[in-house]
């Protein structure tokens, strides 16, 4: 087959692919533009100022208790700590004015935080946003930009100068070390330090890491979490310690308490003899506690209906505690997969008062929980309208999305519950596509199908006189139904040819076909002139 013939078979599909891709993007941009204009256009309706309601002293007191932090003493007593909101935001923590109430609402103490006579338990916390680098942010730093990707480099340094640099290699999932003169030191992988590339074992896919300089050191130590393992990497000593390994389930959440050897965060909690603690929650909702000084490990299993994300642990040299806050206003697990059902449920319960509670458990040596204390309080119903009217721009969005491809809906239903995970996973292309589908999908609306049918009807009307083959016309009809407006525009971009009136039957016919589709007559030939005779001979 000649190149001229074979090129047609490849160029046709690639031309359609290129055109529909660009037009899908163009239609998507236009839809987003229309919605943004609608949001800007919408004037915020100011609610009429509500008359201040007279609040009795009793109600004020109850509100104060509701808004107090619920804190536990090491022996299990609960205190309600109220912080005055008129304290300047930027004042140091210990300069804040506080009141401490007991569980019955009786005032126990009032004054500046630094003078507070009580010392409360502090709890495990997930490292905050600027203290950790998770998988998503790691991908961001390795994203290809005109300035190239930004490698992760850990310096090992004395007070004055850098002695070594350990660079993370995301392809091999290990660290490569360099001396100050640029020569290679070796590799740090899951099995520790080695000077041979072949012997270095990868850590596995990074999920999150946090770094700190231990007291007396200028070199960072890393707590490195992968899907199933947690490592502590000391680059100065070239040591890797496996802190935790889950054999079956992936780690879902990791939180820390006093694990990092850093200066005390608050002077208040220095008197309680805490044990450094890491809590790893796996996908089977088991909480694995890893403690050091002395080294201990424990697994705690809780009921499936507990709000696992909110559970916190702490360990002292005598006891291990679990704090469990919860609320009646938590969306039932059956409704959580569907945002629509969850929203409906929230709207239903919105007008009703609801209970919140906090429980303190002591964890025994077998990982069993013993309830030490519980405190309940009621949140009153929110006054005002029960159901908020949806903003007008949502209607604009609804109509703008009707021009989207029904394929978006199909993708949405096929991927189902995984969609949310998809939008925050893998590469930006997939997550960007997932976000676009979620925002611009037509929602399986009848209007969307009617529009698609109308466009297909237009294609049929336009394409019938221009058709060169029946399968081609059917393909374009199906194409328009599937891609909606982008499909119609692609069809017009690639198939618009001029038509003439047939000299034989007088109906429209295209110039690309020799015979008229209706009557079979050939294209009219020009009248013969004298010059034609010369040319023919």
């Amino acid at each position, binding site marked *: 087959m000649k190149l001229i013939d074979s090129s047609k078979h490849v*160029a046709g599909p690639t031309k359609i692919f*290129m055109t529909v891709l660009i037009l899908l993007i163009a239609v998507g941009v236009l839809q987003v533009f229309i919605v943004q204009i609608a949001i800007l256009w919408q004037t915020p309706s100011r609610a009429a100022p509500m008359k201040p309601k007279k609040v009795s002293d009793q109600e004020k007191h109850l509100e104060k208790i509701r808004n107090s932090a619920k804190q536990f003493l090491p022996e299990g007593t609960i205190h309600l700590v109220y912080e005055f909101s008129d304290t300047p935001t930027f004042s140091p923590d210990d300069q804040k004015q506080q009141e401490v109430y007991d569980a019955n609402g009786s005032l126990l103490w009032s004054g500046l935080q630094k003078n507070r006579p009580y010392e409360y338990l502090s709890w495990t916390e997930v490292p905050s946003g600027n203290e950790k680098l998770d998988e998503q942010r790691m*991908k961001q730093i390795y994203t290809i930009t*005109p300035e190239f990707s930004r490698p992760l480099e850990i310096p090992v340094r004395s007070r004055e100068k*850098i002695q070594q640099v350990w660079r993370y290699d995301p392809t091999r999932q290990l660290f490569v070390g*360099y001396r100050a003169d640029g020569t290679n030191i070796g590799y740090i992988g899951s099995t520790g330090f080695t000077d041979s590339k072949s012997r270095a074992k990868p850590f596995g896919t990074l999920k999150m890491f946090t*770094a700190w300089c*231990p007291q007396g050191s200028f070199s960072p130590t890393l707590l490195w979490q992968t899907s199933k393992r947690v490592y502590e990497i000391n680059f100065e000593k070239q040591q890797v310690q496996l802190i935790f390994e889950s054999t079956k389930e992936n780690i879902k959440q990791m939180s820390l308490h006093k694990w990092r050897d850093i200066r005390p965060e608050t002077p208040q909690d220095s008197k309680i003899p805490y044990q450094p603690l890491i809590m790893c929650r796996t996908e089977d909702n088991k909480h694995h506690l890893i403690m050091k000084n002395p080294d201990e490990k424990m697994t705690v299993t809780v009921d499936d209906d507990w709000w696992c994300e909110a559970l916190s642990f702490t360990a002292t040299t005598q006891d291990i505690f679990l704090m469990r806050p919860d609320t009646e206003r938590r969306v039932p697990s059956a409704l959580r997969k569907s945002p629509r059902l969850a929203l409906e449920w929230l709207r239903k319960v919105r007008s009703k008062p609801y209970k919140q509670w906090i429980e303190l458990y002591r964890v025994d040596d077998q990982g069993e929980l013993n309830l030490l204390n519980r405190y309940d309080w009621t949140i009153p119903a929110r006054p005002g309208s029960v159901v908020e009217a949806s903003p007008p721009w949502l209607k604009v969005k609804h109509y703008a999305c009707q021009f989207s491809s029904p394929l978006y809906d199909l993708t949405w239903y096929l991927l189902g519950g995984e969609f949310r995970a998809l939008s925050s996973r893998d590469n930006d292309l997939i997550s960007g596509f997932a976000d676009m589908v979620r925002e611009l999908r037509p929602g399986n609306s009848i209007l969307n199908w009617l529009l698609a049918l109308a466009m297909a009807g237009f294609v049929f009307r336009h394409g019938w006189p221009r058709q060169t083959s029946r399968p081609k016309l059917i393909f374009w009809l199906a194409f328009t139904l599937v891609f909606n407006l982008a499909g119609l525009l692609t069809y017009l*971009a690639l198939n618009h040819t001029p038509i003439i009136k047939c000299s034989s039957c007088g109906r429209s016919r295209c110039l690309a076909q020799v015979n008229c589709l209706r009557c079979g007559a050939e294209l009219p030939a020009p009248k013969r002139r004298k010059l034609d005779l010369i040319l023919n001979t």
Partner: protein
Amino acid sequence: MLLAAIIFLAIGGFSLRAQAYFVQSNWLSWGLSPGSVVEPYRLTHYSPLAITGIWLVITSIGLGLALGVRHFLIPLFTRTWPFLLHRSASRQMILGAKLTAATIAFVVSLGSVWIGLYWYACRSELFMVPPPVRVFIEGWLFIVLGLVVYLGTAMTALSKARWYTTKILGLAFAMVVICMIFLQWRLSWALAMVIIGVVVLLSQIIDTFLNREF
């Protein structure tokens, strides 16, 4: 081609030299103090070739546009296509010669300078740690981006449609490919994007060039 090489070499070399001084002094001022949590972003660093990379992208895209216009658009304006096509060489040969010339232009003018600059940055007296190999590959990816722009320009020039309709689709597609590559963190995905982009554009260029009337 020579101009692109000179511009890239001059600016790239100068910025690399300046970066060498900056990085040496900057590394000592890292804010790592004992007993404190380290913000992980402090542990990520731009490559010393970062500014060179920006210029590589600009030069590569610029060269792609210039070559595309010179090879396919100017003969349309000057109406010199018929002179070329009526020579004894076949259309395939003419197109092949143009594409080969463009590829060589990219490899020689930008590729060789890029290899030289990367080699220079790897010298230990300049930077303590040599730039990662990934940066070298990303640089080559930027050079190929220029080739994609060249093909997009060629596609646009060869299209017989009007400027305000589908004529511009070739260049638009090249821009889409560039945007998609700059969303990737995996080199393999970026490479796949480039291959798809080149195949889509090249197949249409071949088909259009062999079949259209000039």
